[in-house]
């Protein structure tokens, strides 16, 4: 390794002496761009999958629900790009239409949980006092439950349905958003411009929501993307077990449910593997976007 460094230093020295040195500044921008390359990739993956699912009829002429018992478990072919499942439904169509639901569940729960968590975090974090303490305790309790177990406990009580699932996800997901928003508010609360606003007599909630919150938007956005990814994975896991979205509705997890059958697992890879890859790709894409956002908004990285 030492040899390599020596050579590198010699090279730079010769370049400089020959007058061919590059500007040093370019490198910082280069570094940022490189990080952004992954986020751009993430955005592309995310957008492609999203568009294909939302505009599903454009990308497939088959129906996601039509049963065709003459064509069960047929491998990929011209008519069925990803083959058919065990009651003859076209897998490709199911992936596209199912994606709509999975993404909706993931995004919807993330947004709802964010709405709830951030509002509580901002209000309670700014006010402090007993209310804050109480909500904090509640969030602690909720966070000690493994999320999937808490979700299933609630599902047992309320029954399985799409909307139930979204609500339950939001109910179990707000604590982490709450914590994050609260810590942001706590650190910004002592800023000088806040003192100035208070001196002007501006109301607390107005200060909290209109003046403090926008400054904390960066981490919130990052968390929204990461929560979406988390909820999509959770929905997939639950539906895979048959305990998430009811099986009649196509979702990515529900398609994967078929893989519980070992025969299908072994012999009909087209039923589950492509769907699994789509889910993984989508989540990877979201993670890239989240990482990129984090790099872009992290104050320690700027400048």
């Amino acid at each position, binding site marked *: 390794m030492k040899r390599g460094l020596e050579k590198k*230093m010699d090279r730079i020295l010769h370049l400089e002496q020959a007058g061919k040195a590059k500007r040093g500044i370019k490198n910082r921008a280069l570094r940022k761009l490189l990080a952004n390359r992954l986020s751009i990739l993430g955005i592309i993956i995310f957008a492609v999958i999203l568009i294909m699912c939302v505009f599903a009829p454009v990308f497939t002429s088959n129906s996601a629900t039509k049963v065709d018992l003459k064509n069960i478990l047929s491998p990929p072919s011209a008519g069925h790009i990803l083959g058919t499942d065990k009651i003859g439904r076209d897998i490709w169509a199911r992936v596209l239409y199912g994606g709509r639901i999975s993404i909706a569940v993931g995004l919807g729960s993330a947004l709802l949980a964010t709405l709830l968590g951030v509002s509580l975090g901002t209000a309670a974090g700014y006010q402090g006092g007993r209310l804050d303490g109480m909500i904090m305790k509640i969030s602690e309790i909720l966070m000690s439950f493994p999320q999937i177990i808490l979700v299933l406990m609630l599902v047992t009580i309320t029954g399985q349905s799409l909307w139930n699932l979204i609500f339950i996800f939001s109910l179990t997901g707000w604590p982490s958003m709450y914590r994050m928003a609260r810590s942001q508010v706590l650190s910004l609360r002592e800023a000088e411009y806040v003192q100035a606003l208070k001196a002007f007599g501006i109301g607390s909630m107005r200060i909290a929501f209109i003046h403090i919150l926008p400054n904390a938007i960066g981490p919130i956005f990052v968390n929204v993307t990461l929560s979406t990814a988390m909820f999509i994975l959770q929905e997939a896991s639950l539906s895979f077990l048959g305990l998430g979205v009811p099986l009649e509705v196509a979702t990515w997890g529900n398609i994967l449910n078929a893989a519980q059958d070992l025969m299908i697992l072994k012999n009909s890879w087209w039923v589950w593997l492509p769907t699994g890859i789509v889910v993984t790709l989508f989540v990877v894409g979201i993670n890239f976007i989240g990482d990129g956002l984090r790099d872009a908004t992290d104050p320690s990285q700027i400048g």
Partner: protein
Amino acid sequence: MDHKTVLQVSDLRVNFYNNERSNRVLRGISFHLEKGKILCIVGESGCGKSVTANAVMGLLPDLARIEEGEICFWQEGNKIRIDQLNRKGKEMRRIRGEGIAMIFQDPMTALNPVFSVGYQISEALLYHKKAKNKKEARKQSIELLKSMGIPLPEKRVDEYPHQFSGGMCQRAMIAMAMSCQPKVLIADEPTTALDVTIQAQIFELMKVLKEQNDTAIMLITHDMGVVAELADEVAVMYMGNIVESGDARQVLTRSAHPYTEALLKSIPVLGRGKEQDLQPIRGTTPDPYNRPPGCQFAPRCDFAREKCRQEMPPEMTVSDEHFCRCFYPLTKPEVEADED
């Protein structure tokens, strides 16, 4: 070389390589350290003072290299060329701590927070075989803390850095540095992070080290007040060169280089009142990647002439113990230098 010289740096040139650019941080500096004397290296941030210290200790980062020059260290009569040693090798490691020790600017971050102070001192003792086992090392650590003026050393030795105050932490670090009785102590801005009153105590401590242990001290600072207080000899650095060096009293009272003069004039002096004539040095230090040709101080110098902007002045003798790098020194040299 007389037997009092313990460290000699000659024409040291160091380059830093970052982001595909090379930065010539040290451009040929020379100085020497003598036993029982304090040399202050003074200059603004970015002039290369810390890099000099790191080069001597062999602690330069991986992407930095000594291009030319010599660093000679005398230990028990042997002359060792530090610049030629493998930085991570056994010989260099033996010198560190036992031959040359270093203390740093912020004592609170310079000590590892998860180990007790006693442990960190013992570590040095055990590795340099100054103590046979942990018990002995601990006893020695307590003695060291006591000698540095830390009260209740038996209790303090097991405590952690965050339980010490800033000044006590610095004393502990000095104790750690002196634990193996090094010939040279390098202090990189040791009091910058401390209160002024604590500063004075640390300086007292250094004077004691100098006088009682005959330690050669290289003190790096940006504060001329410190120089006035402690230095036997001083080297003024600017942008990688030593622009003036020599006996402290001479340099301070009869400064030869315009930069030294400008530095002295820009510092407020306690007692002179608020009507003091403070003259900040105009301009700013140049971009290290875009340096002016010739004398680096020329753009900001009130006395600069054409020759200054074209070539870097060589070292000129002002008097027996007083040197400076300037074509037109402020103090008339006793011995006329060559003008070419």
